[in-house]
């Protein structure tokens, strides 16, 4: 594309800024408890202000409300969208990008602002415009433009309840080296590994080989975990190790709920376990319902592959 062609193209896309994508349109269904219940179930939001009518009636609001983040949900097309969309300014802008090779598309972020709550039987009215288009950017995906739509939501009385900005990157997809592309598709998050240094590498290497070792002072035979370079009892720096039988007792435990970290499977229980050899170790308790884990519980560990890259001791009810 020559500089002149690029200028002409940019004039064409910039002409879309400010154009209406959708005029003020009332949602087909009023705000209703069934949709709120399904949405909060999927999101896992247990706030009683949304779903517990009795609780909400006694709250300062005197009634339940819809989660503000559902604002955009009420005007969604639903199944009708599978039969095609009527043309609008956004569709025209997208096909203009596509025609010039900017066929890649990536929703980059959504930003909502809330001004007023809505409750069951209110109606949400949505309108949308194309708010802005960036200058040409070089991105990791390829050269492209960010465009942002601005949706404004009002209730049936014309009062503004919120806005939503949705930013999209339209880009010219770049050729990826074959190897890199293949790696990309295989990348599944794994557990966060410990860094390995002088004082702990041997322990994790043994774990990779299926063993849990406990460091032992060669001079006074005191066991220590986690490993460190000197014995606190006799200050000897000579050490060897013994292999744990992984017979243990739970000293404390916690079930991790939030945040859920990519690469970990939930439900997830962590515990401090006293090993038969006398040292403590932190690990996971698996193989039973999280609610069954208790202080004093006898457990038996084995070293297992927990994901593509990670070997870890895991403890089961004994």
């Amino acid at each position, binding site marked *: 594309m020559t500089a002149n062609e690029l200028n002409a193209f940019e004039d064409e896309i910039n002409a879309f800024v400010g154009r209406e994508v959708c005029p003020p349109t009332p949602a087909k269904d009023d705000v209703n408890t069934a949709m709120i219940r399904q949405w909060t179930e999927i999101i*896992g*939001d*247990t*706030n*009683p202000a949304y779903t*517990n009518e009795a*609780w909400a009636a006694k709250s*300062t609001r005197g009634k339940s409300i819809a989660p503000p983040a559902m604002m955009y949900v009420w005007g969604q097309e639903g199944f009708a969208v599978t039969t095609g969309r009527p043309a609008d300014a956004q569709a025209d802008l997208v096909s203009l990008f596509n025609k010039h090779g900017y066929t890649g598309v990536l929703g980059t972020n959504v930003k909502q602002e809330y001004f007023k709550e809505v409750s069951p039987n209110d109606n949400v009215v949505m309108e949308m415009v194309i708010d802005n288009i960036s200058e040409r950017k070089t991105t990791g995906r390829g050269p492209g433009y960010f465009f942002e739509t601005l949706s404004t939501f009002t209730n049936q009385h014309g009062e503004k309840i919120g806005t939503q900005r949705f930013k999209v990157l339209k880009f010219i997809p770049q050729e990826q080296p074959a190897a890199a592309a293949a790696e990309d598709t295989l990348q599944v998050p794994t*557990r*966060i*590994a*410990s*860094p*390995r*240094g002088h*004082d*702990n590498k041997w322990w*994790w290497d043994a774990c990779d080989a299926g063993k849990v070792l406990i460091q032992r002072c060669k001079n006074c035979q005191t066991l220590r*975990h*986690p490993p460190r370079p000197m014995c606190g009892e006799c200050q000897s720096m000579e050490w060897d190790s013994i292999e744990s039988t992984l017979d243990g007792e739970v*000293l*404390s*435990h*916690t*079930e*991790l*709920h*939030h*945040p859920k*970290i990519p690469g*970990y499977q939930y439900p*997830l229980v*962590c515990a*401090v376990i006293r090993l038969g050899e006398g*040292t*403590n170790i*932190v*690990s*996971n308790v698996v193989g039973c319902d999280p609610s069954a884990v208790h*202080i004093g519980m006898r457990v038996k560990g084995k070293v297992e592959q927990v994901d593509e890259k*990670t070997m*870890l001791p895991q403890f089961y009810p004994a």
Partner: protein
Amino acid sequence: MVANVKDKAVIVGIGNTKFSKESGVSELSLAVQAVKAAIDDAGLKPSDIDGMATFTMDTNDEIEVARALGVGELTFYGRSHYGGGAATSCLHQATMAVATGMAETVVVYRALNGRSGHRFSGGVAGDITTSDAIHWGWYMPYGLLTPASWVAMFTERWMHNTGVTKDALFEVAHSTRVYGANNPAAFFYGRHFDRAEYDAARTIASPLQLFDCCQESDGGSAVIVTTPERARDLKQPAVSVRGVAQCAADNQEQMTSFYREEFAGIPEMERAAENVYAMSGLTVDDIDAAVIYDAFSPIVLWQLEAWGFCGNGESGDFVLDGALRTDGRLPTNTHGGQLSEAYIHGVNGIVEATRLVRGTSVNQPAKDVNHALVTSGVGIPTGGAILGKMN
């Protein structure tokens, strides 16, 4: 040996920035705003400052703060490590510097974009790479990698050992939020909170639920420490440091001291308390109000025991008697604490403890406050201080 810093250093200025979830400014901007507010409160000029104390975790170098404020020369700067354990450790540094003459006027500051920038709740793996990483490596692969999860592990065992229930955790969470609801600077200002909301909130790491946890915050806090002599010419009544101590106990880890024979305890705070009482010549009966570090509700209970307000395992009954409320034995976290004012790593707590002794807390108890306790975060090397009225 008992340290001899009693009444050799006094707090003469306090300052907070606005607390928010998105400051929109740099951490350096928050730091200099907080320090400037404290300087103004004291009636000093930036050039009167000759020492600084902050956290190793703080991203604002002393020289950057000095240059931005026009402080000029510094003859003392010292940093304290271990996250929130550093709160009163910075006061400890400032007190030692002033008492020994290493500096005359030291500012303690902490400023962070703790919500819009790096979030502690994100865990230790993501974007911190330090020498601590080997330590965290014993926990990260198992998923035990957030402050809430480490504290939860202690809490579960402590509740098991003592029989203390969630009723006591709720009382801490609730009494604090009642104060916060009356503090215009607090996130919880004007907000209603009750047991139903507490119980209905999501679990973070069992047994801790959402309202047992502090507010991730953007903001800064600062206090100014100088000599009693210098304080005589200044604007505010001086608040004396009667005693201040720090302690790392035997077999200490950072948030994960799971290798002690009995790990459901905070021996480091017990020792710090013993030292503060010894150097101040005061006893627990002399303490009228407190700001107790509250990143999570149960840690307040453990500290009440460590400082001797009640026996071991009795803190549940102590708080359920209403002790922490405004008319109770020990009005505590009257600014709303870090649970509901803001989480500025405990330095906003030193600000509030100073106000309690001045008599200017937004929730000032009706009784005279001659002495207020202020503490640092626990589960880590920690400490505390007793502040008192100048004689």
